[in-house]
């Protein structure tokens, strides 16, 4: 179980609430823009620190009253809204960035290529991010987040810049990976239709409150 | 990024080669290092050449404002001899222990002159005329020739009229340059600096109008051999050969 409790102050904005998510399934986080969805993800990555706050992944405590793990020590894969691909590195080097550093360079590159292929981005290895289309960049960013073998996958509006057919395809792939690897996954969107489409577990965030009433509708085939 | 990393060792090597931290190579007969006031520029270079020809001892000069040179000597500047335009700064360095009081001597008397680009004004009193719009002198706060200039103007009774038209230069050498470049109409400067300038452009100022400019020297530094060499040069400077050159540059014998 992924358990998150936050009380987070960022400037004038405050986010509070509790969230629980099961492994091996995508949990959709939906709510209007500015509600605090991104802040919720940031709290889980450890890039911001809710006070007080609690982030527990299976038996691992990422944050509680006594402890706070910095982002680099958390098994998290984060795809921000802007994707944030490193512009000075190729797709392969982007993906290899997160791979275990104890491995030899050649082995890291191999894993990166594997991850790219698994994300449907084979053939893009040498490309620079600025030359990638929206859909291609999404896949590379996803591959990069997954290459690290995270426990928790955080996706911030991953389908926003894509057109319809691509959306379905990518959403399906994401779900497949999450189910196959047994990951925890939060998929953030402001689009109610999209949330509907994705189906599964839904958590609502509105006006800085994580509403503790998930609507468990069961999986719907796309 | 990798290219930068590769460039670093090359750059470092280059810096070392260019001698950034390598100590100066010792020469067979190390040159004598003399710190001298700016007004001595022309005269001392001639002196240095003559001394070198006669004794084989090379001398290198660092010219500057006496006040700053004295400060540097107090902070350990490696000069062997300090030739100042007056006694005050030399005594400072002796008091601080940088220079030796036993070798202190007045080696010449300086003279003040009125210098202009065309025809020089006949006297100090003539400076009262409006046509001398900018009058250059060395800064009286720290330059002996500047102090002498102010004293002379007061004694001649024209300080009130000329005062507002004074342009201060940071050294008497710069005051000469102000005049020769046309930035000042006239200057009160050192006789030793007018050198090749035609005689009608400068006129001696009556020495009675200002306190005597007693150019003083002292031997400095801790190395015994270098001090002996510096003292030898100082003696030569004050002897007949040195005196001949100094006189040629307009210095007078000390009284």
């Amino acid at each position: 179980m992924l358990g998150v409790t936050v009380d987070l102050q960022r400037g004038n904005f405050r986010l509070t609430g509790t969230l629980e998510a099961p492994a091996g399934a995508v949990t959709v986080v939906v709510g209007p823009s500015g509600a605090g969805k991104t802040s919720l993800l940031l709290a889980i990555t450890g890039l911001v620190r809710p006070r007080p706050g609690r982030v527990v992944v299976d038996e691992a405590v990422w944050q509680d009253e006594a402890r706070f793990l910095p982002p680099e020590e958390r098994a998290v894969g984060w795809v921000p809204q802007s994707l944030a691909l490193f512009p000075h590195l190729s797709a392969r080097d982007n993906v290899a960035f997160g791979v275990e550093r104890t491995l030899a360079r050649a082995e890291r590159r191999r894993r990166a290529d594997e991850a790219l292929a698994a994300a449907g981005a084979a053939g893009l290895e040498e490309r620079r991010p600025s030359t990638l289309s929206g859909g291609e960049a999404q896949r590379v960013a996803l591959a990069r987040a997954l290459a690290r073998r995270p426990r928790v996958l955080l996706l911030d509006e991953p389908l926003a810049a894509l057109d319809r057919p691509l959306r379905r395809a990518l959403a399906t792939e994401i779900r497949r990976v999450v189910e196959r690897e047994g990951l925890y996954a939060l998929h953030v969107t402001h689009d109610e239709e999209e949330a509907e489409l994705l189906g599964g577990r839904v958590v609502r965030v509105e006006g800085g409150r994580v509403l503790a009433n998930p609507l468990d509708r069961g999986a719907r085939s796309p | 990024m990798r290219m930068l990393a590769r460039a670093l060792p090359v750059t470092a090597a280059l810096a070392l080669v260019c001698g950034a931290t390598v100590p100066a190579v010792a020469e067979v007969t190390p040159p004598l290092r003399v710190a001298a006031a700016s007004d001595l520029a022309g005269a001392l270079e001639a002196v240095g050449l003559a001394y070198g020809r006669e004794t084989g001892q090379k001398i290198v000069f660092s010219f500057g404002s006496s006040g700053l040179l004295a400060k540097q000597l107090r902070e350990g500047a490696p000069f062997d001899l300090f030739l100042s335009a007056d006694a005050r700064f030399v005594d400072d360095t002796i008091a601080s222990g940088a220079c030796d009081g036993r070798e202190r001597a007045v080696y010449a008397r300086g003279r003040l002159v009125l210098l202009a680009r065309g025809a020089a004004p006949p006297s100090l009193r003539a400076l009262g005329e409006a046509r001398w719009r900018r009058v250059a002198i060395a800064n009286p706060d720290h330059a002996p020739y500047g102090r002498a200039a102010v004293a002379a103007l007061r004694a001649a009774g024209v300080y009130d009229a000329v005062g507002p038209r004074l342009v201060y230069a940071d050294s008497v050498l710069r005051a000469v340059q102000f005049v020769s470049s046309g930035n000042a109409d006239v200057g009160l400067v050192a006789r030793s600096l007018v050198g090749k300038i035609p005689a009608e452009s400068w006129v001696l100022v009556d020495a009675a109008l200002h306190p005597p400019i007693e150019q003083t020297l002292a031997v400095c530094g801790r190395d015994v051999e270098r001090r002996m060499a510096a003292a030898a040069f100082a003696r030569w400077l004050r002897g007949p050969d040195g005196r001949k050159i100094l006189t040629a540059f307009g210095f007078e014998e000390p009284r």
Partner: protein
Amino acid sequence: MTLGPLWLSLGIALASTLIAGSVGVALAAALATRRRFVGREAVDALVTAPLVVPPTVLGYYVLTLLGASSPLGRAIESLFGAPIVFTRAGAVLAATIGALPLVVKTARAALEGVDPTLVDVARTLGARPLRAFFAVRLPLAGRGVVAALTLAFARALGDFGLTLMVAGDIPGRTRTASLAIYDALAAGREAEAAGLVAVLTAVGIVALYGVNRLTRRTVG
């Protein structure tokens, strides 16, 4: 025309650029951190302050601080066997002090121009703050940092007042091109001065041209 002072100036400028570059970028990184710390802008102002003070005056104070009449200066001399003032190391120190504010200001702006989300993502990918800095933030600020170094080099090459006070104008040892030019002018040797000025200016112009080319391109 003797080229000794020119080589000396080049060597000193290179060494100063290396030192001012590393210290300056480190300082810039400390100032460019997102975590606001008390007195940050005060530190920035302090580092930039040397630009405001006339170089000869600044040199005067540095000389007082490190010369034979100060405990610090005497400590340096007993530690290293030689004082730092009136030596080539002193000339490097003077040029470094002059160049440091330029490096810090320029490098800070360059570092702050890097999208912070990129550094954040690097952290989530397992990079500790130091690796995130060297592998992501610094390379992306690369052009600005190189521009900072070029500025530092040009400034160090042309330093006069600080060098004159702290290192002295000692022929063969610390008489840099700038000092030699000044001496030549003061002595009326205009041709010699003009020659040195020409070379020094040429190097300066090439450096500044490089800076312009590097900083013209916007991130893309």
